[in-house]
């Protein structure tokens, strides 16, 4: 037992166990919750779950690649908050222009993260904490430290986001489409594969001719963009934005990625896993509500699941000294 704890179960579990564990957990959870309270399977509840899952998924898309490389993005939540404020402010007047602006802001912020990390050689932990602070402050300044309601709730963009195609809300569709596009890049292009090489061993990647900085900057830029879009999705659910709205999503995005099975040490996992992680988190949260678990207790459960998931996926043979 002590041996398992020391090595990190990730080093010992067979590949098959590690690969299927998240899916098994997911199925088990659906079963447990469904049996406890079949109201879980009601149409309206399922939409709620999927909406929640897509929100978590959007926030975690870029984070997946960042973690795959072996780094971390702590600015996700603040970027989402800042963009929720900006979007709520501008969407009524600018319409689709506001959406475009958000995407550009996300890319700019992510690019900033990437450059600070690679050019200034500041560890991603610190770099993104720093830039995150900038986004947080901007969120407060732009919103004047208050909630920003969407002026014209009926405007085309908001209506589009709220609409449904074949019972599926557009917001979910958008997220899944983006996920699918990124998945294709990750699994089927040289660039995507290089993420895994870098995450596995930077020295070996360098000596194999991979231009590491380039891919790191890309991952952070994408993470900025998906964090920004998370802000948009948040506004689409409650029709207003606020400077703290997205903050919890930093930790949630990391939790989703880790729960899906992507190792914090990098090199293993990916967007497929993150999808599972998002579903697990969403069902966990919704399930606990449906079952009637005390709200405060829910945080304890979530935290415990995160620790368990990390313990199972971490491969300590890859971390020389645990920091």
């Amino acid at each position, binding site marked *: 037992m002590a041996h398992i704890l020391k090595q990190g179960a990730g080093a010992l579990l067979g590949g098959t166990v590690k690969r299927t564990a998240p899916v098994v957990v997911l199925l088990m959870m659906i079963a447990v919750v469904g049996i406890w309270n079949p109201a879980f399977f009601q149409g309206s509840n399922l939409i709620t779950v999927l909406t929640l899952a897509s929100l978590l998924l959007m926030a975690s898309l870029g984070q997946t690649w960042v973690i795959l490389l072996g780094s971390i993005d702590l600015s996700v939540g603040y970027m989402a908050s800042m963009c929720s404020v900006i979007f709520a402010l501008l969407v009524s007047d600018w319409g689709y222009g506001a959406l475009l602006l958000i995407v550009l802001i996300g890319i700019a912020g992510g690019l900033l993260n990437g450059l600070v990390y690679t050019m200034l050689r500041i560890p991603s932990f610190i770099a993104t904490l720093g830039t995150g602070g900038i986004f947080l402050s901007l969120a407060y300044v732009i919103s004047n430290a208050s909630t920003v309601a969407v002026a014209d709730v009926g405007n085309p963009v908001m209506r589009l986001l709220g609409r449904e195609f074949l019972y599926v809300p557009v917001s979910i569709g958008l997220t899944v489409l983006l996920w699918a596009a990124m998945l294709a890049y990750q699994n*089927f*292009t040289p660039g995507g594969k290089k993420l895994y090489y870098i995450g*596995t061993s930077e*020295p070996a*990647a360098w000596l*194999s*001719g991979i231009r590491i900085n380039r891919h790191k900057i890309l991952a952070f830029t994408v993470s900025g963009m998906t964090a920004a879009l998370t802000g948009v999705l948040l506004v689409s659910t409650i029709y207003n934005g606020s400077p703290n709205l997205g903050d919890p999503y930093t930790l949630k995005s990391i939790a989703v990625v880790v729960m899906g099975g992507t190792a914090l040490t990098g090199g293993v996992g990916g967007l497929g896993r993150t999808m599972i992680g998002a579903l697990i988190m969403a069902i966990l949260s919704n399930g606990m509500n449906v079952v009637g678990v005390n709200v405060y207790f829910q945080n304890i459960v979530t935290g415990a699941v995160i620790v368990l998931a990390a313990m199972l996926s971490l491969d300590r043979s890859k971390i020389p000294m645990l920091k």
Partner: protein
Amino acid sequence: MAHEVLVSMRNIVKRYPGTVALDGANLEIRRGEIIGLLGENGAGKSTMMKILVGYETPDGGEMLVGGKKVQFRSTREAMAYNIGMVYQDQALLPNLTVLQNLFLGYEHLFTRGGFIDHRKMKQTGREILDMMRLHCSLSDEVEALPLSTRELLEIGRLLWLSEISGRPPVIVLDEPTTVLDSNEIRQLFDIVRSIRDKAGIIFISHHLQEVLDLVDRVVVFRDGRDIASLPARDLTVAKIQEMMIGRELNTEYYLVDKQREPSERVVLEVKQLTVHGKFQDISFQLREGEIVSLVGLDGSGKEEVCRAIFGALKPDQGDVLLFGKRLNLKRPDLAIREGIGYVPQNRREEGAFQHLDIAANVTVTLLEKLAKLMFLPRKKGLQLAREWIEKLRVRASSPHMLIRQLSGGNQQKVILAKWLASDIKVLILDHPTRGIDVGAKEEIYRLLRNLADQGVAILMMCDSLEEDIGLSNRLLVLKDGRLTQEIDSPADRKPSVLEVIRAL
């Protein structure tokens, strides 16, 4: 003169994956005697010392200290018996002061009521500095001090530790003179001689004349065993060199009959390549189908030369030309694009992607070439991997196997496959057969011969001079960062190992 036996190591066996480092080695250390421990790289002397000081545990044999059987599980346990080593790479903590380093880990000896008595500590510290004739101050930060001072500090620390235990110390000095100038070497030798009677001292060095000047007895290691133990006064440098080598070159093993004469065409030209502090003014040519070996002692700069040519180490001066075209040496990917491959010494961390499968390892340099319109299905990589597994006879059940599950030899084959699958013109190999068993070595030699037949120019450094001589057409000798000599190694007239060792 030699007194009682302090440590007795008998029949020590140590195995690493793929090799036997020590095969029944013996060593007796007496008080009042300075032993010079000699042997080629890989002969086993470093491993023997690591076991002595508790850094490694033996797989067989026994060790007696003061007549009692012991088994050290850590260097601290060995220190408790007063056995310590001054390492070649510094063991001091550079950001701490001299005072802090001297008593690191032993501060409890100066405590009074739970608090450290700094006055007493400083007093003892000054005594140590005096004993070692050092002029630095206790509050100096170690990283500001020259390497020679740091080394003397480490020796002083060991001597002090031995004094407080009351037991005669066994001190191993691992290549202490590489960082010292001639005055400092003399000073060191004086100090060592002055403590000779109180301790058992082992001195490791490649500078054979130095060894003869200082030591009382010479012990030579070869192929994992101690093969000679003789008084220094009976020996000369030439005699020691003969003992270190031993057997005839096995021409069959190195496939010397397959060695071909290189063509006249110059593939790679290195011109006055310099990296300050590592090597200077290196110039040589590599021809089509030629295998050239770089030989030199530790610190000669040969590994750095190879990395610089590959673009992994930026040169301060000089050029590298491939077929006459000047190369941009900023990054490895630029060299790879032109057709240069590099197999690093550190297979585990730099050579292979341990947690990825064979297919991934084979295709890493070929991704863009295999992809069509940015699209690269997994199938292609797997197919390519299967081809190479077969071609190189890699012992793996499928291309899905993680490379870390393969033996050292098979891992190396996979690493080579990725270069063979690209269209390389030059292949640089840094200790390619390290940690690989005999059978796999032979297969790799065959691979290299085939590669040379196809016209690839090969530059390498091997684990033993025999390997260097056996495989190459030519040897380039590096000494202290300079190219001092070129030795031809044609198939019909191979130089003897002795001849080469004399040039180093």
